[in-house]
């Protein structure tokens, strides 16, 4: 087991034995007296100096969260204080969310990190208080006179260390915001604090590395154009081996009707590549006139986890490329935070996209009026529409070897409200589907624990704790309905849920929705298919002499 992760039995023992407010044990100390302790597994490596140089970010240096001295720049208090002031002027949300909280506690036990760590500072209300306490001391009037009355405190280096820890134990999943009577969104606060921390060079390399890659090569993984083509072509070969069908994606092709953009994890990472194969099969099946760009080759946007300016900078490539290629509209692959950005930010930041047309499905003629301004359609909407119009030849029995459940990704769930489309697709491509308990799905879904750029190996301890509520809900359907397949529409999920399942629920595999679509699609001219896209034998389709994998 990784040195960044305790044994499952040890962790369970800690859950049973360690007192915590989650279990109703009173805390002997106020939250602001609790120490901040960095240890193996609870901090991400800091941004490399060359990465910071490349991005023009402040205070590049070699440092680690466990260092005593974080080498903050001279005058850092003023930088933070000015930074906060200017953001309060630019965002009503920030100002309002700092002012409105009544500490009613509705959010307290809604955070997956709180449920997995029992750490009081992971209650969303306290997470926001970490900033609020400093804000109150800096700004307002009467409460300054009544110091101690409203929990104000000074901005010290200890506070910065605390911010770094707890604003990286928030995945910006917005579950707390659903329950808040004022809709206070901790994600907004986390986004702002992370921006502030960047001003003084307090950062996370697992976020900044991909950001820098994406800026340079067009995708988080830093895949250069020729390699991207090679990778996808190798998937094309795999598809031909498995199905006998030669799909023919094109790259950077001008005049295509649709530009297809998906997270680069789908091109490079296991099990994302199988989802990619699903897309390729689908597009071939319906004869879509599409192209893939090597320049805008990233659907995801780690800028969202860095700063709103960086988010805009990385996102700008999508429209820029769509314009250059002269496509009519953009189709987006399965991804969570990508869709938060596309749905809630893109047209505001980088629009208006008046050089594109309102998306119309060339197969069904459906006008996607819900995407009239952004001109970008989610693949689950697109596929659901195809199935609804009976344009796909599907054999759901080909997924009979899988007993599935569906994980709503936080961003698509609470930043968009896409619940039915993926379920509709799933039900049509697969015969066995069981929902997890009601309090853990749809708008109440639990994060995978590794979202918002926390997917680092060295962060495994926190990730496995943060993912515990999700894993626990999967365990429920695993025990009750023998579920063995967790289906998602998020690339970060596809990367982060496999280790989570391995830790908490061995035997459960993670699938992208369109991988199952790819399995079920009956392609024209295909050979007899005996295995799914992962080369696992499909139940009821076995070849007589085939040996089982």
């Amino acid at each position: 087991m990784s040195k960044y992760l305790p044994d499952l039995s040890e962790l369970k023992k800690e859950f049973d034995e360690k007192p915590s407010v989650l279990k109703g044990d009173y805390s002997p100390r106020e939250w602001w007296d609790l120490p901040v302790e960095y240890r193996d597994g609870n901090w991400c490596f800091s941004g490399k100096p060359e990465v910071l140089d490349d991005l023009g970010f402040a205070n590049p240096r070699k440092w680690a969260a466990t260092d005593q001295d974080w080498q903050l720049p001279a005058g850092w208090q003023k930088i933070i204080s000015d930074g906060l002031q200017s953001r309060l002027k630019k965002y009503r949300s920030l100002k309002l969310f700092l002012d409105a909280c009544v500490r009613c506690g509705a959010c307290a036990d809604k955070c997956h990190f709180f449920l997995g760590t029992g750490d009081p500072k992971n209650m969303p209300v306290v997470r926001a208080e970490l900033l609020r306490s400093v804000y109150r001391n800096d700004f307002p009037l009467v409460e300054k006179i009544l110091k101690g009355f409203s929990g104000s405190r000074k901005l010290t280096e200890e506070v910065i260390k605390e911010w770094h820890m707890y604003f990286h134990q928030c995945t910006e999943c917005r579950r707390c915001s659903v329950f808040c009577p004022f809709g206070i969104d901790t994600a907004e606060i986390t986004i702002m604090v992370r921006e502030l921390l960047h001003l003084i060079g307090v950062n996370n390399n697992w976020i900044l590395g991909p950001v820098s890659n994406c800026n340079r090569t067009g995708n988080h993984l830093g895949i250069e154009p020729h390699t991207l083509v090679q990778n996808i072509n190798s998937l094309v070969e795999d598809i031909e081996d498995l199905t006998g069908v030669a799909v023919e994606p094109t790259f950077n092709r001008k005049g295509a009707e649709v530009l297809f953009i998906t997270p680069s994890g789908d091109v490079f990472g296991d099990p994302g590549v199988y989802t990619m194969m699903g897309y390729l099969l689908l597009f071939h099946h319906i004869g879509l006139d599409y192209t893939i760009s090597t320049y805008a080759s990233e659907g995801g946007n780690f800028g969202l986890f860095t700063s709103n300016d960086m988010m805009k900078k990385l996102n700008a490539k999508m429209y820029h490329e769509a314009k250059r290629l002269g496509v009519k509209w953009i189709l987006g692959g399965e991804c969570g935070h990508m869709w938060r950005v596309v749905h809630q930010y893109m047209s505001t930041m980088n629009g208006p996209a008046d050089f594109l047309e309102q998306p119309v499905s060339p197969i069904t003629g459906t006008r996607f009026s819900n995407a009239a301004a952004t001109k970008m359609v989610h693949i689950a909407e697109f596929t659901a529409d195809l199935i609804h119009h009976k344009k796909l030849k599907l054999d759901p029995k080909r997924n009979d070897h899988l007993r599935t459940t569906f994980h709503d990704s936080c961003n698509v769930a609470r930043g968009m409200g896409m619940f039915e489309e993926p379920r509709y697709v799933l039900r049509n491509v697969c015969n066995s589907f069981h929902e997890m308990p009601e309090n853990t799905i749809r708008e109440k879904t639990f994060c995978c624990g590794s979202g918002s750029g926390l997917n680092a190996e060295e962060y495994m301890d926190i990730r496995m704790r943060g993912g515990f509520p999700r894993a626990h809900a999967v365990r429920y359907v695993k025990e009750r309905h023998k579920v063995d397949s967790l289906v998602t529409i998020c690339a970060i999920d596809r990367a982060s849920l496999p280790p989570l399942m391995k830790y908490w629920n061995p035997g459960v595999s993670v699938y992208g929705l369109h991988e199952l679509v790819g399995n079920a699609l009956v392609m024209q001219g295909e050979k007899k298919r005996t295995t799914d896209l992962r080369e696992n034998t499909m139940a009821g389709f076995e070849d007589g002499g085939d040996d089982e994998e």
Partner: protein
Amino acid sequence: MKKVLMPLLIVLLLALLPYIGVQYAGLSYLFGVIIPYTAFAVLTFGFLLRLVDWIRRPVPFRIPTTCGQEKSLDWIKHNRFENPSHSWEVVVRMLLEVLFFRSLFRNTKAELHKDANLAYGSHKWLWLGGLVFHWSFLVIVLRHSRFFFVMIPGFAEFITHVDSFFEITLPAFYTTDALILAAITFLVVRRLTDAKMRLISLQTDYFPLFLIAAIVVVGVLLRYVVRLNIMPVKDQMLRLVNFSFDAPGEIGALFYVHLFLVSVLALYFPFSKLMHAGAIFLSPTRNLCNNSRQKRHVNPWNADIKFRTYSEYEDDYREKMKKANLPVEKE
């Protein structure tokens, strides 16, 4: 315990102040005229200023928290009020929040049991307590409007009539007096007995609860125990609403305690978390349509950001792209 006892002590001292002031120092003009006027000026202007201060800040992005199915394909049932796409749907969503505390109604309680077992139960107590508290408070305020008009307005008569439905005392007992005290008790007790609540509560959370409780208790004493002669009180209130600076008549000192504590509440309001009363209307995660893909939301300060263009990219990778048979703009 300091954070509970301090606000309690402050409220007690505040209650004592006008009693001594009026009873022993003859400061009825201060407590009956000057302080109420000041307090309500501060409340009115303070509240408005805070609202204006929020409203003049831009909302750069459309960021509703979506709690139900979005509007998408025609045949998919849209959950209008959890995920509005039209302004009228937003209005309904907001009304549900403001009048019925929709989001609190969702509340669950998570429990961690043996062997890493999590359980979630429905937990509507906070919703119920909060609702009873706020509605009772509103009814009580409206009921008090009888003191501010020569002719008692119809709605006040009606509310009073309904509120005194259980005619079990003389003068008739108001249900809301009991309800609000019960609700405050619940709200305080949960802050004290729930480990999470005890940790997150600050003095500023207990103070308004104690203050409002004190106002209610004194009000109840005035009505049922002391049986205050209300004619001079009504005279004084009418003078106040007519912006008269005449000295108040002969009124018992306990009334000044009631009035002063209300004034303190008014003074405290705009500077404290009580401003949630205004904030709830402005929350960008609740009061916006989830239609940013359909209709472009404009950010007034949309930052001017330089991004890496395609031609810069091609300049860096042209040879590699050509080798991979990728089309290029420049040879």
